[in-house]
Every structure is written in C-alpha cells, then in structure tokens.
C-alpha cells in the first residue's frame, strides 16, 4: 500500500562478482520502486554460514525480512512458524500459472505461498573443452557407456578425462547426475525424493555406485579439496576434457572470454530428465508496515519479468517463469530452458538432491556422507548401498 515505504534486509550468500552483480540488479529495481534495501551477505559452504547467521537471528527474534532459502528447508522453516504468508502477491501476479508446477510446489507451504523463486540452475550439465574433444575425435557423450569409452580414449591420450573437485557437494553433484542417468527419472524420484527403500537398495543403485567407481578412475589424483572453479579452469586450459557441474560453471568460461559452442561445449548429462536447483527468497514474519511492504515488493519484483531476464543473464541460470523471451541468452541457456519446458511436460523435471532441493538437510546429508565416503575410499558398491540405507534410516 501507499503509506509505507518498503524496507528489506536481505540475507543471502551471493557474494562473488557475477552473483553480486545480479543481486545489485534486484536492489536497483527495489530502489526504483521506492524501497530501501539493506544487504546482508554471508558466503561460504553453500549457505552453511548464512544458515548459521539466519538461525541465530531468528532465535534472537531479529529475523531478516527475507533470506535466501531453498528446497524443503522452506517448509522446515515454515513448520517452525517463522515464515510470512505472501499469497496475496503470488495470486495477484498469477504465479501458479507462470511457474512450472514442480517449482511452484517448492514455494508453497500448506497451501499458502511462502517463498519467491529467483532462478533455475540446471545441475546435470556436462561441460567440455571443444578443442580437446575434436583433437581426439570425440563427440559429446549421450550415454554413460559413451562417456566411459570417451574417457578411456582421452586417458590414453594423456588428457584427464574428468575435471573434478573432491568436496562432498561436488561428489554429490556427479553422483546425482549418474543416478538420474541410470535410475531414470522415476527411479530418481523414488530414491531421492520419496526415499523409497526398495529403490535405494536396488541393483540399479549398485550400478550407480559402480559407475561412480569407474568415474573415480577418470579423475586425476590431486582432485581432493579442489575448488570447483579450479576444475573448470582445467577444462578451459585443456588439461581436462569434461566437467560435470551446474550451469554456474558457464560463468567461469564466460569470464575468461570463452564462447559457448566454439571454445567449450555444454550438454545435459546422459539420461532423461532435468535436475533443477532453484534459488528463492523466503519471507520471515516481521513487524512493521515498512518491512511487510518491503516483502511484498521484493516478492513481486523477484518474479517480475524484467528482473528475471536481467538477473539470469548475469547469473548464468535461466528464468523460473516460462514466459520470458530468451533472445539475449546464450545457447546453453536456451537449451536449458527448452529442456525444462519439455521435462515439465514429461514429468521428469526433478529437484536436485545434491543442492538441497529434494530432501531435508539431515537426509540429504546422510546420502552425501555415503556418496563421498564411497568415492574417496575403495568401498564396494554393495557396501555403499547398505551404508546408504542405514544412513537414511538413522537420519530420520
């Protein structure tokens, strides 16, 4: 309403150059609409540090007006009774129409809208150095067997087949891409959304771990602890051929002046489906008209068309709404958007477990513990499957 001057203090973990520029866009629009934006960035650990700060502030009764939260964590926070209801904004802007159904589900808590989506990152990307591939006569792989064959060939040629950083979340990123390929979209949903024990213990799951073991062989020996962007740099330099990483990796290529399709190639990882990682802002129950007005304005702007375009151009992701023109986007983004639309139709638009979209923290963590333990040791696949089941049971 007109009386209040919108105010927002926004807790987020977008701090690096490209990300920060993207947030700045939002802030400018917010200011242009008469709002006052207070920035509260906390980077680190994929939002762990931000989570720490958020928890402390909520407990202190000093919650920020909005915080970057995603996936089931939104519902978890809602259950703690601290989130605000933004249904009014959502309904006024027809969110239920313009958002893909799967994504809209994440933004709703017991029938009300409680968060606003910002962007869609696709996680199941495979990136490649075009020159290295053509020098070795290899095409982008479309099945895991092709990938394995290509990798073997590259290895023989003295190129590291897969650039990888040995951090738990990167292990998990590769793992879910492999799982999606081998289990298929239904199997993936059963295993990592519904936590269906039969699927988790199935032979297919064993096969997934087998493929992980194979992939471990394609990674150079110094991968441990490596930051993902250093891995990307290896692909850029031609030291390595492939990297499996979300579309934020594109930003690194672009920053180095590489051109998609020419210098580097992008393709979804082998198999059906689309794993999304949707960033979103949850609004916290706060007192004061100014702040509530700020929340409404923020929600409206975030999902607004203009912001969606500018922001995602900067960030390397794609808009959440299906009705944004993609003329200014690069080929990878266009491919991503097309795939999203298609898989939304086919029911294979799936949440990324590795990026906290599919499961609550404890369960996702339990899976990641197993995956990373397996990947970093010589555990057998059967043992890994058993361990996975135990860990999930113990996390409930």
């Amino acid at each position, binding site marked *: 309403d007109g009386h209040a001057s919108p105010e927002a203090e926004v807790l987020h973990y977008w701090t690096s150059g490209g990300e920060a520029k993207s947030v700045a866009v939002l802030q400018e629009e917010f200011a242009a609409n008469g709002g006052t934006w207070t920035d509260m960035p906390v980077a680190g650990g994929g939002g762990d540090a931000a989570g720490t700060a958020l928890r402390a502030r*909520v407990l202190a009764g000093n919650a920020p007006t909005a915080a970057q939260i995603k996936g089931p964590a939104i519902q978890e926070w809602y259950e703690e009774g601290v989130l605000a209801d933004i249904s009014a904004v959502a309904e006024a802007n027809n969110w239920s129409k313009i958002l893909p159904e799967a994504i809209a589900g994440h933004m709703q808590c017991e029938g009300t809208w409680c968060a606003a989506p910002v962007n869609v990152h696709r996680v199941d990307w495979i990136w490649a150095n075009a020159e290295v591939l053509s020098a070795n006569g290899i095409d982008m792989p479309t099945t895991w067997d092709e990938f394995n064959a290509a990798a073997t060939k590259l290895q023989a040629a003295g190129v590291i087949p897969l650039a990888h950083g040995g951090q738990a979340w990167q292990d998990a990123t590769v793992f879910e891409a492999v799982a999606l390929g081998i289990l298929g979209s239904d199997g993936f949903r059963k295993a990592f959304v519904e936590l269906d024990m039969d699927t988790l213990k199935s032979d297919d799951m064993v096969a997934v771990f087998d493929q992980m073991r194979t992939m471990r062989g394609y990674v*150079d020996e110094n991968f441990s602890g490596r930051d993902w962007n250093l891995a990307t740099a290896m692909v850029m330099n031609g030291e390595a051929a492939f990297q499996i990483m979300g579309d934020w990796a594109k930003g690194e290529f672009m920053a180095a002046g590489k051109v998609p399709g020419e210098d580097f190639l992008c393709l979804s990882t082998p198999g059906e489906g689309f794993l999304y990682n949707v960033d979103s802002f949850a609004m916290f129950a706060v007192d004061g008209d100014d702040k509530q007005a700020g929340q409404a304005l923020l929600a409206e702007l975030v999902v607004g068309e203009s912001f969606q375009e500018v922001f995602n151009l900067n960030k390397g992701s794609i808009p959440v709404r299906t009705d944004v023109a993609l003329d200014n986007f690069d080929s990878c983004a266009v491919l991503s958007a097309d795939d999203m639309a298609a898989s939304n139709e086919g029911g294979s638009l799936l949440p990324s477990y590795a990026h906290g979209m599919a499961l609550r923290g404890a369960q996702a963590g339990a899976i990641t513990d197993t995956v990373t333990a397996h990947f970093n040791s010589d555990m057998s696949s059967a043992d890994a499957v058993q361990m996975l089941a135990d860990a999930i049971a113990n996390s409930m």
Partner: protein
Amino acid sequence: MTKWLEEHMPKLVLAPSFIVVLIFVYGFIAWTAWVSLTRSRLLPRYEIDGFIQYDRLFASPRWDTAFTNLFVFGFLFIVIAMILGLILAILLDQNIRTEGAIRTIYLYPMALSMIVTGTAWKWILNPGLGLEATVRGWGFEDFTFNWLVDPDMAIYTVVIAAIWQSSGFVMALFLAGLRSVDQEIIKAAQVDGIPTWRVYTAIIIPAMAPIFLSAFIVLSHLAIKSFDLVIALTGGGPGYATDLPATYMYTMAFSRGDIGQAASSAMIMMMVVFTIVVPYLYSELRTKDD
C-alpha cells in the same frame, strides 16, 4: 552499611562475572544437555524424547570417524607440537644472535586465523600445485607428498597445519621455562662433568614439568576447539575423512538442521574436555593455594 560494603566488596565485584558465567557457560551447557534429549531439527524444541540422539550419534559412521580423528589428531598434534616446540626452544636458547627476529617468525602463525591462511595451505599441500609439484620441478621426479588427497593420510595434513600454527607458541612457553631454570644447577652439572645433551635430558627438561602441563592444557584446548583449521584446509574431506567433533557438530546444527544431533555430539565433546580439564584445575588450584 559502608562497613558492610567494605567487607563484601570483593564478592560484589566478582558477582557479575559469576552470574554471567553461570548463565552463559553453565546455563548453556545445561541447555545443550536438554536439547540433546529432544528431536530438535532446524530450531530447538523442548519436548524430551530420551536418548535417541545419542543412539543416532553412536550409529553414525561419520561420528565414528570424527571422534577417532579427535584422538589421532589430538595425540599427534599435542605430542609433535610439544616436541617441536621444545627442540626449537632449545635451539633458540644457544645464544642466537637474531633470536628476536626468529622468535617472531616462529610465533606469528598464532596471530593468524586459519580463515586467512587456509587457502595458502591448501595450495601448498596440494600435490598438483604445491610442494610436490615444486620439488618435482626441481628435478626430483619421484618426490611424493599427496597426503591432502589421500583419505587415510589427510588428517595428518591437518596435524601439520595445526602444528604450524601452534608450535611457535609452545616454543615461547618452553623458552620462558628454560630461562627460569636456575643457572647454578647448570653450572653444577658442568662441574660434575655432565655433557650438554645430558644436562638437557636429565636435568633441565625434567625440571620443566609444570610448563609441559601448561602447554598440554593450551594445546588440548586448541585441539578440542579445532574448527577453522579443518574447514579452511580440507572442509572435512576427502569424503569426511578429516571431520572432527567440532566440525561434525557444526555441520549437523547449521547445514543439516539437526540440532538435537548436534547437541548430543556437543555433550560428548564436553565430557572429553571435562576429563582433561578437571584434573588440571584440581592440581592448579591445590598447588597454588599454599
């Protein structure tokens, strides 16, 4: 009234600190104990639900690793930092001309947070970027130093960095100790014809027992609280091979939304602290009382 004030002033002065400590240390420990008995997730809840969190804790292979690591790490860190600190102190005690500068160099890591030096350490220890690559670059092709990426050895790199950070401080403690040994005892040993190394091993070092105790306490305090170190250096990896109770607890509480679990691990940590610190406190206060 003024007489009463005068008499009770010492107690009145301590009172605020006392209350603050009761609430903010012991109250919080009690709070943690309580929460460890609940099914708290994202935020604390207060319905008691028995020892379920402890059952989960002891069933978790990751906690196993973290807890074992605490002892491997703690033992190696404390022992090596003490030995190294002692050796450095003895070396520095030989009338070194540049002592001041060298002491500062050995001591400065204590001033830095691992948040600051973590990345540099990561590079140095990384076989592809750091020491191994450099030494190989000098022509020693067979030189291997890849502990950081070896799950079985990674915890030792944490030990190395921790020693780097704290051994200078231990050195300073020991140096102070060496200098407080009665010079006449050393002269007496010389007249007795005792060789230098035996003067150290048989006389000076045994006489520094109290300093060993102080160093032990400071180091165990650091070992138990080690957090930045692991986060900055290995992030707990490869896998969770370098997890420590402190990082386990933090992960559970703040990235997994599993506060009950975190509280139970915190209680176990506290018990470890207790078994180390209480005997120390006891001896400290007894000996200084008379």
